[in-house]
């Protein structure tokens, strides 16, 4: 029997969960619904709602967890979500037939402001009163019966972490839902009330054009909120005439006193009347505990010191301590990929490459970000729970506000110096929409760790390691300067953004400073799980798709014509090896086939001896390096001694079995020669295939566009191929310069190849000017598919990642070109 068969329609209900920020709403939501939740996104909005289900007897409740808010007066589309959800106007989200209103007993007055707005809608409502213990500590006691009588709704004391009151809340809700609620009537000044009622009538007449049926409290909102989203809607639906009528109503109601003030006074007047009945306050020292801590944590010297230490620890963990985890994940995924590839048929080259590079490369590219994301959110969750996030913002706001940001932008931007992805995900702590979007846009400008390989390669190859100003190493100085290129351009970008598209008349800071609380492990784990799985599920698919697309662009057309000459080289090398081994075998024992030479007992023994000897030598070199690595002289001496011992043993072997030994050495030599030719052919083939690939052809076609940057098609193609991630350029350059894709940024041979590379006219391809232009380009470009995917996820729109990519690429191009020409002019 299906569940829909067991329950009739009346046994399913939808409940909205609404309350101020920091009142334990998420904890209650989890206590109610457990892990049975999903996330709902809405167009044009960067906040999201969570949906979960819970059962009571035969009733199934769908619970909608709305973003925390202090008021239903919406000033941005994000703040509109709560009201739209209450009225059932959100896409793919059922209309609630009841409300759980969460109120924090320790600051009940302010919590009830939102409460009065919610109760005006008249939906069946139950109040979940949280933080009663905190309130008690502060000497506040609430008379539940009187509060319930005053508000006309049931009140249940809830302590979600210990599950106290959760069952009672469900039972009360179940009862309440069968009794329709009564809209709360507030003592508004008669002029305001009358104007709102008149406006309500007019709005009802406009409902066809508006596309929805307005409610009575919404008329009040439109009347008071002169800059709300509804203003725009009625302008579109009702035209200038309606707006004029609205203005007349506003003037009539105001009579010299601002409507917002009239509204707030009416609500808070009613609240203090209720509180005189239901609340008693005694002096207490609870708040002073937080004050004592704050005296240190917001102190000029100690507070700054603690802040620097906490931020330093956080940055260090994201930047360095995540390293081994990231390497472990990359290594593990790489190993797994190799295992899977080895199961595929040998001749299915395309499938093997797709699985190995495209799919496993992409999966690794997604999972590799998890350590940094989880570490940052571990810090954010603990600091937020603790109440320190508000203090950090309090300390930093002065500095950040100069750039049009807020104190809460600091942590996301700081973490972006390690990686923009956790940084952008961390912007959720910023409440103001425009400040959040600006911070998201700026995060990729911070110099993340993926740029480091590019800098290492270019600086190592082209910046002389000389000392300047007596004590500074020029290479170090250039690296340091590169870290400031991004932030230097982020500042004007921020100022332009905040004065341009993201302009809001005011970006209020207005931040609640909660009391310090002990973080709860369960809460922290929930945040880590949510953020981690959201990244993998939502951003992960985009990153994987990009990885596969770029793989395809680098693979196709994969013409056999391109491969043929290299196949011939390999063939020739193999044939030559066979001829050589036949010659050696014949010399050893006339008539012996080359293939059987290695199996001759003497030769086999000699081969084994030589292999062992070489292994011993390699081991000795490693041990010397470990023992004397700090002392070049001792190291050279040890190496000399080891080498002498090696040669002596080799001579000894040769003396004992001359014939077998010569055959073995000859065989080794022939094999090494064959392997070298084959490896060269393989690398040459990869380079030729890359040049012939779609991406290579695009690189050739765009060569004129790269010229102002001082680049040829190879660097340009490398830059395009590194769209999934900046550090990919190192491997791509390795492929193009016929070294294979496994090269590292510190690799001397790649460095030498870059230094030796020539352009079409035979001049050096890379000069200092070219290297600087490459570095500046990578400092400013948005070459990171993962960042763009997370940006889309966090802003819930492709608009922002596309704008970011276009803006940063243009900026990177222009500044890199300018760098090139200036550096060349100066003789670089």
């Amino acid at each position, binding site marked *: 029997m299906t569940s829909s068969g067991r329950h009739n329609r009346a046994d399913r209900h939808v409940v909205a969960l609404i309350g101020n920020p920091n009142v334990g709403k998420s904890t209650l939501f989890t206590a109610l619904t457990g892990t049975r939740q999903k996330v709902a996104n809405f167009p044009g909005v960067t906040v999201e709602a969570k949906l979960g289900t819970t059962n009571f007897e035969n009733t199934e409740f769908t619970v909608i967890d709305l973003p925390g808010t202090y008021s239903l007066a919406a000033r941005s589309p994000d703040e509109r979500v709560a009201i739209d959800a209450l009225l059932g106007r959100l896409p793919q989200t059922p209309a609630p037939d009841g409300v759980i209103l969460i109120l924090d007993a320790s600051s009940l*007055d302010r919590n009830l402001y939102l409460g009065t707005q919610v109760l005006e809608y008249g939906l069946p409502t139950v109040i979940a009163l949280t933080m009663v213990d905190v309130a008690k500590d502060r000497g506040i006691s609430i008379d539940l019966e009187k509060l319930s009588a005053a508000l006309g709704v049931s009140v249940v004391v809830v302590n979600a972490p210990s599950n106290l009151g959760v069952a009672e809340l469900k039972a009360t809700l179940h009862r309440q839902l069968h009794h329709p609620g009564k809209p709360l009537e507030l003592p508004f000044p008669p002029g305001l009330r009358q104007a709102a009622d008149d406006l309500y009538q007019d709005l009802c007449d406009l409902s066809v054009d508006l596309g929805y049926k307005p409610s009575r409290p919404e008329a009040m909102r439109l009347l008071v909120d002169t800059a709300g989203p509804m203003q725009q809607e009625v302008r579109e639906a009702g035209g200038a005439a309606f707006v004029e009528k609205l203005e007349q109503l506003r003037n009539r109601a105001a009579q010299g006193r601002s409507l917002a003030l009239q509204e707030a006074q009416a609500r808070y007047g009613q609240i203090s009347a209720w509180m005189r009945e239901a609340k008693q306050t005694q002096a207490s020292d609870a708040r002073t505990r937080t004050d004592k801590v704050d005296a240190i944590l917001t102190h000029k010297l100690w507070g700054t010191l603690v802040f620097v230490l906490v931020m330093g620890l956080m940055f260090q963990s994201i930047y360095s301590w995540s390293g081994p985890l990231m390497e472990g994940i990359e290594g593990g995924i790489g190993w797994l990929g190799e295992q899977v590839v080895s199961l595929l048929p040998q001749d299915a080259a395309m499938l093997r490459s797709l699985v190995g590079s495209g799919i496993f490369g992409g999966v690794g590219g997604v999972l590799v970000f998890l350590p940094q994301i989880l570490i940052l959110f571990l810090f954010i969750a603990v600091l937020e729970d603790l109440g320190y996030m508000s203090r950090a913002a309090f300390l930093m706001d002065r500095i950040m506000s100069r750039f049009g940001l807020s104190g809460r932008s600091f942590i996301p931007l700081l973490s972006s110096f390690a990686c923009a992805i956790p940084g952008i995900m961390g912007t959720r702590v910023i409440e103001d929409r425009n400040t959040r979007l600006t911070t998201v846009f700026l995060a990729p400008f911070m110099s993340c760790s993926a740029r480091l390989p590019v800098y290492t390669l270019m600086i190592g190859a082209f910046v002389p390691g000389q000392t300047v100003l007596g004590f500074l190493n020029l290479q170090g100085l250039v690296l340091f300067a590169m870290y400031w290129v991004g932030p230097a351009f982020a500042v004007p970008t921020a100022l332009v953004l905040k004065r341009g598209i993201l302009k809001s*008349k005011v970006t*209020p800071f207005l931040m609640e400073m909660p009391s310090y609380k002990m973080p709860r492990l369960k809460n922290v784990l929930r945040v880590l799980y949510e953020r981690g799985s959201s990244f993998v599920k939502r951003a992960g698919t985009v990153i994987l798709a990009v990885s596969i697309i770029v793989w395809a662009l680098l693979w196709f057309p994969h013409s056999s014509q391109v491969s043929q000459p290299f196949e011939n080289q390999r063939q020739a090398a193999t044939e030559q090896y066979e001829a050589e081994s036949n010659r050696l075998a014949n010399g050893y024992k006339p008539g012996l086939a080359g293939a059987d030479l290695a199996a001759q007992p003497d030769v086999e023994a000699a081969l084994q001896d030589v292999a062992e000897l070489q292994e011993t030598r390699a081991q000795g070199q490693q041990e010397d390096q470990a023992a004397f690595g700090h002392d070049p002289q001792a190291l050279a001496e040890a190496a000399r001694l080891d080498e002498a011992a090696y040669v002596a043993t080799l001579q000894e072997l040769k003396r004992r079995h001359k014939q077998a030994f010569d055959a073995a050495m000859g065989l080794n030599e022939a094999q090494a020669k064959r392997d070298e030719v084959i490896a060269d052919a393989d690398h040459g083939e990869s380079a030729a295939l890359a040049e012939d690939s779609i991406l290579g052809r695009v690189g050739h076609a765009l060569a004129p566009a790269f010229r102002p940057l001082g680049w040829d098609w190879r660097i340009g193609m490398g830059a395009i191929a590194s769209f999934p991630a900046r550090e990919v350029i190192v491997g791509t350059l390795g492929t193009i310069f016929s070294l294979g894709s496994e090269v590292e940024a510190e690799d001397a041979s790649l460095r030498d190849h870059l230094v030796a590379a020539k352009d079409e006219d035979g001049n050096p391809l890379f000069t200092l000017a070219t290297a600087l232009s490459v570095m500046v380009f990578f400092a400013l470009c948005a070459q990171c598919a993962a960042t763009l995917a997370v940006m889309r996820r966090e802003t819930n729109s492709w608009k922002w990642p596309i704008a970011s990519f276009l803006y940063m690429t243009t900026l990177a191009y222009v500044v890199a070109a300018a760098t090139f020409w200036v550096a060349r002019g100066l003789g670089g």
Partner: protein
Amino acid sequence: MARTLAQLKPGDIARVSDVTGDAALTQRILEMGILPGNDVQLVRVAPLGDPMEFAVLGYRISLRKSEAACVQCAEPGAA
């Protein structure tokens, strides 16, 4: 003498007399309980001189100096 919250010294308590300035900002300040007749105490100022932390209605809120300057106030006990 008419003052604003931005001019208080840490520890000072003042009674709000009016909130003026940009409509959207004023509305936010009012909604948070900083409205005529309520007492507001300046608890502390951030190390760099801005923002400021206030106590109102039994909770704490921080406002930038420019926001605090929108709130006119008088001695506590005044009307």
